[in-house]
């Protein structure tokens, strides 16, 4: 499903060049639950952004479902993200002026589906029930606890029924009990056949994943 070949990523930081990723080769099959571990600055997040089509590598190829992603235009990548990829971030990244329902509804605004409004609302309501926030629908993010915010973020990532969820330290800002609840939601998605790629610092969290890779200085160690 996902094939990365010789992915390199360099940043220009003022006058010096920083190489964040060197020669990354990685394959992920559909239905995998992959954890990426490694110290800060090892390039995990950059790799995740590239996997999520938010960023482009300096060189190398990225095949997703047999298509070379980086031949696509910015618009096509955006559409692709909307329909096939869900993001979950360490800092939740919810839009503060929107309530729970509206935050979760957001992907529908950008995915070009033939779905009618009642159907969309039904899907949003369904995913809200799945993450157990039915009584929080009209709350703004500022009125929620960390765990609740992350559940909103997961609901937003799952609402379009994407093939892949990319999570960047989803439990990093949560206590271990809440973290386990979040991981349980990931398992539900995984059990339904979804692919998850998750960055984490925590060995225990990583142990939930089927596979685990280690990164250091822009390289992968298995």
């Amino acid at each position, binding site marked *: 499903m996902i094939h990365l070949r010789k992915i390199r990523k360099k940043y220009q930081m003022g006058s010096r060049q920083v190489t964040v990723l060197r020669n990354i080769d990685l394959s992920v099959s559909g239905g995998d639950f992959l954890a990426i571990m490694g110290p800060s600055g090892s390039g995990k997040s*950059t790799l995740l952004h590239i996997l999520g089509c*938010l960023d482009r590598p300096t060189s190398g190829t990225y095949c997703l479902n047999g298509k070379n992603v980086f031949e696509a235009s*910015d618009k096509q990548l955006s559409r*692709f993200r909307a329909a096939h990829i869900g993001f979950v971030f360490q800092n939740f990244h919810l839009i503060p002026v*929107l309530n729970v329902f509206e935050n979760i509804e957001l992907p529908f605004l*950008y995915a070009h589906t033939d779905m009618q409004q009642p159907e969309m609302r039904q899907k949003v309501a369904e995913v809200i029930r799945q993450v157990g926030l039915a009584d929080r629908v009209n709350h703004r993010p500022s009125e929620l606890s960390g765990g609740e915010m992350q559940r909103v973020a997961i609901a937003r990532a799952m609402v379009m029924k994407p093939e892949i969820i990319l999570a960047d330290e989803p439990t990093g800002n949560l206590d271990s009990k809440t973290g386990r609840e979040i991981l349980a939601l990931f398992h539900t998605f995984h059990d339904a056949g979804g692919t998850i790629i998750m960055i984490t610092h925590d060995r225990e969290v990583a142990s939930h994943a089927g596979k685990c890779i280690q990164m250091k200085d822009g390289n992968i160690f298995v």
Partner: protein
Amino acid sequence: MFDYFKIYIILKTSFRSLLQHKLRSALSIIGIICGTMAVLTMLSIGEGARQKIISQIGQLGIRNIFIKSIPLTEVQKQKASEHLSPGLNADDAVRIIKGIPYVRTAACVKEVKAAVFSAGAELSPQILQTSPEYADVLNLSVQHGRFISETDMIQKNPICIIGAGLAENMGVEGNIGRTLRIENRVLSIIGILNPFYREREGNTSISVRNYNEIIFIPPDILDTENDLTEIVVQIKETEQVIISGKIIKRIMEVAHHQVEDYQIIIPREILRQAQKTRRTFSMFLSAVAGISLLVGGIGIMNIMLAGVSERTKEIGIRRAVGATKKDIIFQFLAESVILTSLGGSAGILLGAAAAKCLSAVADWDTVITFFSVFLPLLMSVFIGVFFGLYPAWQAACMDPVTALRNE
């Protein structure tokens, strides 16, 4: 395809973002409010002035040319007699009718100063000695009876026609068949004019007589030796008015031996002047509106740029969730257009109020038309798009990854 659901969500989100900073949003649209207010007020003043002059000129008659005698100073009188100028007289009218093929008809008018009595009471209307053509040329009509006829002129009938207001003041004595006395002549009333709506005096050179307080009498009833006060010439077609005016000027110059004891007034010429003035006024208005809206627009751009940099993270989130650059542009444009059209609407309301106040307090004529509401509204929307485009473009071009890292 137009997706109303999406538009609804975008508008709703935009409104919320603007409400997050109520004071800031309100302050940023003051420029737009002032600009649209100025445009609407000035448009309605211009329109009011235009309608007034058109209606005044309409009462004078667009095909008419007025030749008025001017009261002369002693020195001028001296000169006039040296040059043997006869003063404005009936011969001038004959010369004009015979000399210009475009002339349809002409009426001579003489103002008579005399005391008027009705049932013992003294009245002070204006007395005009004139011919039957006058009613036709100035489009006057009677509500009862008739106007002066050719027969009245030939037979020198002792009759008069009175204005509606005068008739009302005179009560029973103001009916047809009653009589009134001018100096020592008793005249019977044979006609009462229709009530006349008179525009307030604006420009003295085109003042209209008050036909409500007037008495018309045929010539040669009273002994008067004065010159004519006025000759009104009516031209057959509107297009011939200007050229006829030039010929009349020449005829009069010759007849009066270059003495300017008369003045030629051409309503059509005045209308053209007014239109020219209006064009100048419109240009001035556009400049004022342009400047204030430009300043207002820059204010909007400033606030939108601040909004974009504050909401960098939100832009990153939207991009991650699947928004294209176009979606981001549309989101921010929606916000700036909402902002400016709110300002525009407020400006229109204030401008309409200002126009009404000017009418009430300063006694100016203001007329609010569809155009004078629509133009400033359209301008405010256009400004929202124009000045919102750069900030929106900046938002769209942000790198999603950098935007997401922004805290």
